[in-house]
């Protein structure tokens, strides 16, 4: 089942001269985890905002083509209707946390209170979201007393509690320590196994190589490639688009170690270990 269908999407911000997205087309299946990569200015965040409807409903500007998420056509749907289908996790958790609530628990409850859920359902959803992101033990803390990493996990928990079918994450781990990043990726993996569809913009290329089902490579507002990570990262021209391949791939390329049949390079630690064999 297709959860996201983007068809020839073109978009220009109101004050801009140039198109931020120049005719993007891609289809994402239910339960897939898509990594979006590319240099700054490639259109990655704009694409995220188009998936959740902030483009064009909030930013306005010139819009062409269509985006359908969870069966709703974005252009013809209210933001409030879209919000039940697709949630957005921002880069900076400080802009996501409301500031209106005094505890982590109430922060997650905030989004649910507007949905008219009964109390038992709310409690169940909040507990599950806090546990999934491993922040249940901070439930009575003030959100602003959390570290950056804990706060980002709170932002994700608040979205997850609303049970959207799709979650879009725009560089969610950029402020996190290695352990925090790994926790976010594991949580995303868990959500995926429960059938949720995930789209994540991320510069941590080794993590994308490990976890994503497919990678969308954007450059200059165009979709350069949309394929399995191993195929995208094996492209000899990847650096030209402002993206470095995973370190494992770069090493194997320099050592000319590839799969002879497919011509593809290892992209993960395990893949590189198997391919390199031994050093001594």
């Amino acid at each position: 089942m297709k959860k996201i269908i983007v068809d020839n999407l073109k978009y220009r911000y109101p004050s801009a001269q140039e198109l931020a997205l120049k005719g993007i087309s891609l289809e994402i299946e239910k339960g897939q985890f898509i990594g979006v990569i590319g240099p700054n200015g490639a259109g990655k965040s704009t694409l995220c905002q188009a998936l959740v409807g902030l483009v064009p409903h909030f930013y306005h500007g010139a819009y062409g083509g269509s985006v359908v998420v969870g069966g709703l056509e974005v252009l013809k749907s209210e933001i409030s209707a879209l919000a039940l289908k697709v949630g957005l996790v921002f880069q900076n958790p400080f802009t996501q946390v409301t500031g209106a609530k005094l505890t982590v628990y109430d922060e997650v409850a905030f989004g649910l209170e507007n949905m008219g859920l009964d109390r038992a359902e709310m409690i169940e959803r909040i507990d599950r979201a806090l546990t999934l992101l491993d922040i249940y033990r901070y439930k009575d803390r003030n959100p602003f007393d959390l570290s950056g990493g804990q706060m980002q996990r709170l932002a994700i928990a608040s979205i997850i509690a609303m049970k959207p079918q799709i979650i879009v994450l725009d560089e969610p781990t950029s402020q996190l320590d290695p352990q925090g990043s790994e926790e976010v990726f594991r949580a995303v993996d868990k959500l995926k196994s429960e059938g949720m569809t995930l789209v994540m913009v991320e510069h941590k290329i080794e993590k994308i190589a490990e976890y994503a089902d497919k990678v969308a490579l954007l450059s200059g507002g165009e979709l350069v490639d949309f394929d399995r990570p191993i195929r995208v990262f094996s492209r000899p021209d990847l650096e030209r688009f402002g993206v470095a391949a995973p370190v494992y791939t770069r090493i194997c390329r320099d050592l000319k170690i590839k799969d002879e049949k497919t011509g593809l390079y290892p992209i993960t630690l395990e893949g590189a270990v198997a391919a390199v064999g031994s050093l001594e």
Partner: protein
Amino acid sequence: MNSSIVVEDLHFAYNKGEEVLKGISLVFDRRSTAIIGQNGAGKTTFAKLLKGLLKPDSGSISIKGIDTKNTTAAGLSRHIGLIFQNPNDQIFKSNVLDEVMFGPLNIMKEEKRARDLALGALEKVGLVNELEQNPYDLTLSQRKLIAIASVLAMDTEIVIFDEPTIAQDHRGKEMIKGIIRELVGMGKLVLTIMHDMDFVAETFERTIVFSQGQVALDGSTREVFTQEELLKKAGLERPHVTRLGAKLGCSHTFLTAEEFVSFAKKSDHRGG
């Protein structure tokens, strides 16, 4: 040699009874230094103490012979520059050039000299064509570069970066790596707080690990990344290439992909 920064038995708490820093003693020489550790380990607090924005509860910090307790952050600002993790905490002017000129003007540089310093710094970060822009019309990664330029323009002997590569793409990271190397080449003391272990391994001579308000490890970057168990205890991972070498059973601690490749090529030769 007169060490730039001497920290002795530093203790600090935001709230009474909850110490964030629990007895830090460090001497910083001219080696470029990375400070790594989990979120909440006390790294940013430490940077703010060095900069004089916070004062020690006990113990002392001396910056070029000046005890931070006896001076203000303003008094230290000609010696030490701090680039905040979040540029929005730092930027307040309505155009890029004014923002970057503010620092040098504030430490009594003449208008013309301040302008030259600002332009030089903006050139380094690739924003010299954005002088009239409002920083808030630019992207987060560009604002981070403005914050970096603002501190570079002050031409201080000590520069502290708090997570400089956040929101930067591959090109931006390489640019920041180049800036750090250039500052080190100019004889400045560069301290950097960061989570990107690959970047740390490629860039810094010395690495210090903070864990729960204490120094858990301190040594050359290679020595520190050899300590797998202690790093794990501090909640940290080793760089990707280091892990690859270890997984392959190699006793050498690799810090860069280039090192690994040349080692592998040599060992290939030996094996015939």
